[in-house]
């Protein structure tokens, strides 16, 4: 900005100096707008909603529109507002921590997400590794092939697995016909189906950061290790894996955080027998119409995820610094 101002001042003649001063003011204003517009948008549509969720989580359910009380407002003046504030309570939270169903749902969600993340890493690492070692001419195509499923609908990809995993589905038909099993496997509506669904849906999120970390790696390091008599396995654990660690961390966070609150996969593949917090929140809201309790569920879920989300942010910021 200041650079531009100096140039503008030196190149313009004295006659239109007044105009360029005005123009400079205009430029500064435009520069401000670049920051202010997205900033205000995110404050209003991302930050303020969380404050509202927190406030409603302290309210009580009511048969009204909207279905909670108190509705904060200045309708009854300042004293009325104070009265309303006194009605707020942490009842919803005490209820959540005492009900085994909710505690179970949180614990199960974190465990399911953690197992799925490890499985996704195990499936994704060899793919990313193979891609990074592929001939350079082939890499853009392989990258495109990893990204392409991401462009097709998440819902559709999860739906596709119902037809495969059903008791009379394609997988069981194949296994029964080939004589591997005599009885159809029950996979749909179990946690196994949820694991498959998460690994499948989130695989590109794992492969992409892993690939970009592995691709940057200097392979002469491996050759040097080999020349010095290091066996391939220990070369992998001592050189390749540590160097790919930023990719591993980014990939795991990209899978773990959304997986904890996942709704579509446990709902369509997990059936009614499985318990996950995203589904609990959905049911609390849409079936029970209990807005205060679903808000409290959301607040606790957010508190659980705040540390991983901050780690993710730091990893992003660090990657940015490195690119510079």
């Amino acid at each position: 900005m200041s650079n531009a101002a100096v140039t503008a001042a030196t190149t313009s003649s004295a006659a239109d100096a007044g105009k360029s001063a005005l123009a400079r003011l205009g430029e500064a204003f435009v520069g401000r707008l670049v920051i202010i517009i997205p900033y205000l948008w995110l404050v209003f549509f991302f930050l303020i909603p969380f404050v509202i969720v927190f406030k409603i989580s302290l309210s009580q359910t009511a048969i009204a529109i909207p279905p909670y009380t108190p509705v904060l407002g200045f309708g009854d003046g300042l004293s009325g507002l104070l009265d309303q504030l006194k009605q707020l309570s942490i009842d919803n939270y005490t209820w959540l921590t005492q009900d085994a169903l909710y505690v179970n749902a949180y614990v199960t969600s974190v465990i399911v997400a953690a197992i799925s993340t490890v499985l996704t890493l195990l499936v994704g690492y060899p793919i990313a590794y193979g891609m990074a070692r592929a001939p350079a001419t082939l890499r853009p195509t392989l990258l495109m092939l990893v990204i392409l499923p991401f462009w097709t609908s998440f819902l559709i990809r999860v739906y596709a697995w119902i037809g495969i995993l059903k008791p009379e589905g394609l997988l069981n038909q194949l296994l029964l016909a080939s004589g591997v099993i005599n009885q159809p496997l029950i996979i749909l509506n179990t946690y196994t189906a949820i694991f498959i669904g998460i690994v499948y849906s989130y695989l590109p999120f794992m492969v992409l950061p892993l690939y970009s970390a592995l691709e940057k790696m200097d392979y002469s390091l491996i050759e040097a290790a080999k020349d010095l008599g290091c066996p391939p396995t220990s070369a992998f654990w001592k050189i390749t894996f540590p160097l790919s660690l930023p990719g591993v961390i980014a990939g795991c966070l990209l899978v773990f955080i959304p997986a904890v609150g996942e709704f579509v996969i446990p709902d369509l593949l997990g059936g009614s027998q499985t318990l996950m917090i995203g589904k609990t929140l959905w049911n609390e809201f849409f079936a029970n119409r209990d807005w205060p309790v679903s808000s409290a569920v959301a607040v606790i879920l957010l508190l659980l995820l705040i540390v991983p989300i901050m780690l993710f942010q730091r990893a992003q910021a660090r990657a940015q610094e490195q690119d510079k």
Partner: protein
Amino acid sequence: MNPTWSRFNITSIVLGFAFLYLPIVLLVVFSFNESKLVTVWGGFSTKWYVSLFHNQGLMDATWVTARVAVISATVATVLGTLAALTLTRYTRFKGRMLFSGMVFAPLVMPEVITGLSLLLLFVAVGLDRGFLTVTLAHITLTMCFVAVVVQSRLMTFDRSLEEAAMDLGAPPVKTFFQITLPVIMPAIVSGWMLAFTLSLDDLVIASFTSGPGATTLPMKIYSQVRLGVTPEINAACTILIAVVAVGVIIASLANKRREVQRQRDEQAAQRG
């Protein structure tokens, strides 16, 4: 120098891609199934596509979804590009930490939380749920994805180009539109496409923020899936996949042509 591409590498790639693509291929294949049972092959037929076009509810939902996706992707692209500029160009201003937090957090935030919080906002400000609220919600979610895509392009942008333009007397705004914007255009286009498909795809946030008149296609598909799996849904999914695949292929071909053209220009310039 790259070492050999071992058999292990090739096998893991082939298996990985089989895992990624087989379910989608099966879904498409069974949309052409004569039988009503989705998983038993009863001969080739396109009757499900015909019945699809007579399903008024599905057609209405498609129209709503298309409008929401185009509008929200366009607004999100503008806002996301501004956010990307802010993140890369203005490294120090009050509340920058908060700003980058608000850009990155929605990328990983569970959709149920985003959906619920936006709904409660709309109720609090007294906005009726419907077309407008879904569009606003989708803008908020997708602008962050656009910001990340555009930002990564701005990172590698050679700023001496801008400095040269300004040294020659171009004001910053003109420099932006004549130099910066054309260079980052491919990233903006792919940001728009990403925003468009994310909006097309979203079930959870739309379910929270949409009202009676504005049922989107994923909401419609979801309610039908809950009633049972039918070849008609397979047909609807196949059409969606085809639309997205054609769009992505056209975009990547256009990108490639631009790249080839650029290389040719550079070579010509070097030959002088």
